[in-house]
């Protein structure tokens, strides 16, 4: 049976909860408790006796994604009466999907599978140098990959549905909008329904944005469509160089398609820019084309069926080329407009669409929010799951533990992966001053790269630390194969206040790539060559 991330995550919740316990005990923000005494009451009576009282439900969750479902299941386990509203508005080209939200259906899960498909292609190539006799006519079927991925997604949808059923969470396939502060209205196949609840959780997430240029909506696709695309993508232009754009370009190129990325300003905004630059270089070496400082102008469909895409560069010079596919990855829009939040009095953040919440609580004390809809919080599935679960425990389980949004590890699944935890070098400099931080760095050579003579020039890592004393680690950055697997363990170390001293006194596992973190010894300040000593490279 498929194993959903959410289930697997229940293990690390416990450990994080323990460390979080001490850290957050004093942070429980009294100001943010509801003004009425409802939370106190709910928390004091035994969990199984919670009753919705004057309301239909204790909790109504709007959005059946990672965060919403985690909160709903936890709340139900604590005795609350819960309903989850989940509804997917089809994309402009008509793509729709089932229960479970972005990650499962059009995000992390299909993305990682397409990435894996691309890596396998590389491995087939490498295998020859390891002695495997493989014919030259190795080809890839987009249809087979797409169907296999969609089958997996459907199985996860089913498991999710069964889980809700088993845990007695009511699932309603309808769009929810606020009628007033305690009522959500929805329309399902059975007709209109009004749901009243003591608490509400907004977990509607976001959807991709489209450029405001002629032809974008008619002919463009987004990450909502690519994983179930009913034709081969062919020659593709990806507009946007955030992690979604780069990942899509990476796996498309890896599967054998011509891929071009158009960058408006900088790649991977918000990430360490030195690492972002290395990722772009590495992708360029693999054959992905980059158009720097360019903006799309129009998309036209030609008689041949191809798309003529026009764009302008910094100097306002206009260019165009023909593509089979144009994919927009220029950011995501939080789906708050659809909620009629004004009816409930919930305020929107300064960006005009997200929700600013302290400990997931909005300005309306009984309305909460988790996940991608939150202002200035990491848009990551495990973050939403964790926050949702902790919130449910605070509302219905007498808990005072708040979500710690700091030091959350993440990984970009470009062909050579980039994993990081903590802060970037530029943020560290800004926060502590250049004189007060030390950056250890080094290039390294994965053992398995030698035989197929794969390029090692972009295998790089750095440790950003405070300069004084044991040198507390502020950020870890790693580019290489399996970066996600490498960085996850170190993320736990960072939660335990990792120092450079501790890192250096850790004995590595040889030969691995993760051991490179235990071998760092060259500081940027020293000016020494961070390249490893080597023969013939």
């Amino acid at each position, binding site marked *: 049976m498929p194993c959903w991330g959410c289930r697997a995550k229940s293990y690390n919740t416990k450990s994080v909860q323990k460390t979080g316990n001490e850290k957050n005990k004093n942070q429980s923000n009294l100001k943010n408790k509801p003004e009425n005494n409802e939370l106190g009451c709910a928390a004091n009576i035994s969990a199984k006796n919670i009753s919705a009282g004057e309301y239909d439900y204790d909790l109504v969750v709007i959005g059946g994604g990672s965060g919403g479902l985690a909160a709903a299941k936890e709340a139900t386990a604590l005795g609350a009466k819960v309903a989850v509203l989940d509804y997917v508005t089809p994309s402009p080209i008509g793509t729709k999907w089932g229960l479970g939200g972005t990650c499962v259906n059009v995000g992390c899960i299909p993305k990682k599978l397409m990435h894996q498909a691309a890596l396998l292609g590389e491995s087939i190539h490498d295998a020859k140098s390891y002695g495997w006799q493989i014919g030259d006519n190795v080809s890839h079927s987009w249809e087979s990959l797409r169907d296999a991925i*969609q*089958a*997996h997604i*459907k199985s996860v949808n*089913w498991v999710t549905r069964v889980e809700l*059923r088993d845990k007695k969470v009511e699932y309603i396939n309808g769009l929810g909008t606020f009628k007033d502060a305690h009522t959500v209205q929805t329309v399902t196949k059975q007709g209109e329904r009004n749901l009243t609840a003591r608490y509400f959780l907004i977990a509607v997430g976001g959807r991709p944005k489209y450029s405001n240029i002629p032809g974008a909506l008619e002919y463009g696709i987004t990450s909502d469509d690519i994983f179930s695309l009913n034709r081969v993508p062919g020659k593709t232009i990806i507009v946007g160089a955030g992690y979604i754009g780069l990942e899509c370009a990476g796996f498309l190129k890896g599967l054998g398609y011509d891929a071009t990325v158009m960058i408006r300003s900088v790649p991977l905004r918000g990430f360490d820019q030195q690492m972002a630059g290395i990722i772009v270089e590495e992708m360029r070496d693999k054959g992905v084309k980059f158009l720097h400082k360019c903006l799309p102008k129009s998309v036209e469909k030609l008689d041949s069926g191809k798309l003529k895409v026009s764009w302008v560069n910094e100097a306002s010079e206009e260019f165009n080329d023909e593509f089979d596919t144009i994919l927009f990855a220029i950011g995501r829009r939080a789906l708050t407009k659809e909620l009629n939040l004004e009816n409930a009095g919930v305020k929107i953040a300064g960006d005009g669409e997200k929700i600013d919440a302290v400990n997931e609580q909005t300005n309306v004390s009984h309305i909460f929010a988790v996940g991608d809809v939150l202002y200035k919080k990491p848009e990551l599935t495990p973050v939403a799951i964790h926050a949702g679960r902790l919130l449910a425990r605070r509302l219905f389980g007498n808990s005072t533990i708040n979500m710690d949004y700091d030091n959350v590890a993440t990984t970009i699944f470009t062909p050579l992966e980039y994993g990081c935890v903590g802060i970037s070098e530029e943020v560290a400099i800004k926060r502590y001053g250049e004189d007060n931080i030390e950056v250890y760095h080094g290039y390294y050579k994965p053992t398995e790269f030698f035989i197929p003579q794969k390029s090692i020039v972009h295998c790089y890592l750095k440790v950003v630390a405070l300069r004084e004393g044991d040198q507390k680690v502020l950020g870890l950055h790693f580019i290489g194969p399996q970066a996600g697997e490498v960085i996850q363990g170190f993320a736990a170390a960072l939660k335990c206040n990792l120092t450079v001293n501790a890192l250096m006194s850790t004995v590595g596992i040889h030969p691995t790539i993760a051991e490179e973190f235990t071998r760092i010894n060259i500081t940027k300040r020293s000016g020494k060559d961070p390249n490893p000593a080597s023969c013939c490279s």
Partner: protein
Amino acid sequence: MNTLITRSLSRQFGALGRRTLATTQLKSGSFKVQDDKDFIDKVENSKEPVIVDFFATWCGPCKALEPRLENVIAQRKGDISVAKVDIDDLGELAAKYEVSTIPALVVFQNGKVKERLVGLQDEDKLNLWIDNILKK
């Protein structure tokens, strides 16, 4: 080769024969359940035992089970029939009968669940299981 052909021929004839017989009762052989009403008519209202095969198009073990079950049913020459329920189309039925793992074979008779067999099975197991049902 010969035996294969004979077997498939006899299966076809069997199906034909059943179809003519089925003018009074449309319950023999293997059929796909179309909707809730279809399920009530052909499964819940059946006095004879019916095996309901809860499956999904994306489920590998379900695909593997299908030909085995068909073989075993064909050998019974119309003594028992199989109603196939696609859980993606008829999720409420799966929920009603508490199907959470597929493939799930659920035997109905006179509107009641008599037996359950969950997971991929080999033909020997299926044969024994169906023999037991028919004995009861």
